[in-house]
């Protein structure tokens, strides 16, 4: 603990982290409350998307990465599917 800490301790840091806590809670709880009343469609959506892609190319289900970012006004869902290269496709 250096003497500089007294300046750090006086920054209104505690207040700002509490604001962050409230915002994070509002977002996560909004989503959780919705999923309590109706079933979360994300798992099914993801399965069906992968099934559609699999009709066209052979894919390794282990190489599907799902990235979600839930937001207050908007969420983004990114599904990354690793497609086999042309060589592999020819070989099959």
């Amino acid at each position: 603990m250096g003497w500089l800490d007294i300046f750090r301790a006086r920054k209104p840091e505690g207040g700002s982290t509490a604001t962050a806590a409230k915002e994070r809670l509002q977002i996560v709880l909004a989503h959780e409350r919705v999923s309590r009343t109706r079933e979360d469609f994300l798992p099914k959506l993801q399965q069906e998307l992968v099934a559609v892609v699999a009709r066209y190319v052979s894919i390794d289900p282990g190489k599907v990465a799902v990235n979600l970012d839930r937001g207050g006004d908007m969420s983004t869902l990114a599904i990354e599917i690793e497609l086999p290269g042309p060589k592999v496709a020819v070989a099959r």
Partner: protein
Amino acid sequence: MAKVVVVTSGKGGVGKTTSSAAFATGLAQRGKKTVVIDFDVGLRNLDLIMGVERRVVFDIVNVIQGEAKLNQALIRDKRVDTLAILPASQTRDKDALTKDGVAGIIEELSKDYDYILCDSPAGIEKGALLALYFADEAIVVTNPEVSSVRDSDRILGVLQSKSKRAEEKKDAVKEHLLVTRYDPARVERGEMLKLEDIREILAIPLLGVVPESESVLRASNTGTPVILDAESVAGQAYADSVARFLGEERPHRFLDPEKKGLFKRLFGGRAA
């Protein structure tokens, strides 16, 4: 082969999730491929403490029930790239966790990771039993308080009788004591159990002592594991504990009340 480490306590609210997040992050910072699993089905919180709550799509129950691949349910940490989080389910009940299901997950993770940390729920019911069943090592989180010490003793008994290692009569689960929320000033005033008393009663090797610190609340507010707050005493105590866990010798710090200097007394600075 990965090492499976359970963070457990028996008693609730003693700092298991805080410690799981700190340890997982600390091990990953040291280059160990680490995954931390939340076993608290129905009351998931590790995602919040790790700051990944907005990114949860699938959880451990989805994987066990075949609704998602393990790799899809794992959330890769954006701060430390050798770290991943497997969230607990928030909507299912505890019966959705099965021993076979968890065994499959641990086996698959073992191929890719060095450490698998299991953040146990409180109690000695199904969730807690499953969290410790596959453990090679156990971090027993204890507060300097009578009921916590008693429950830690109880959980040590469970580790010695109900873990896979116990059932298969293999080498015992390696036990580590992690004392958290230690307040040296209150210990000095005789209001709180001394470290030496806890060590004497539980008689297992001491991994670390994490002092009561305001930085823990700040860390949970922002979803940043407290070990990333390298200036805080709690962050430093966790970093020391991780180093000891990996075999380094580090002296124990923060065991005595902080001597308040003139500035501190004038301006009223608190423990970081």
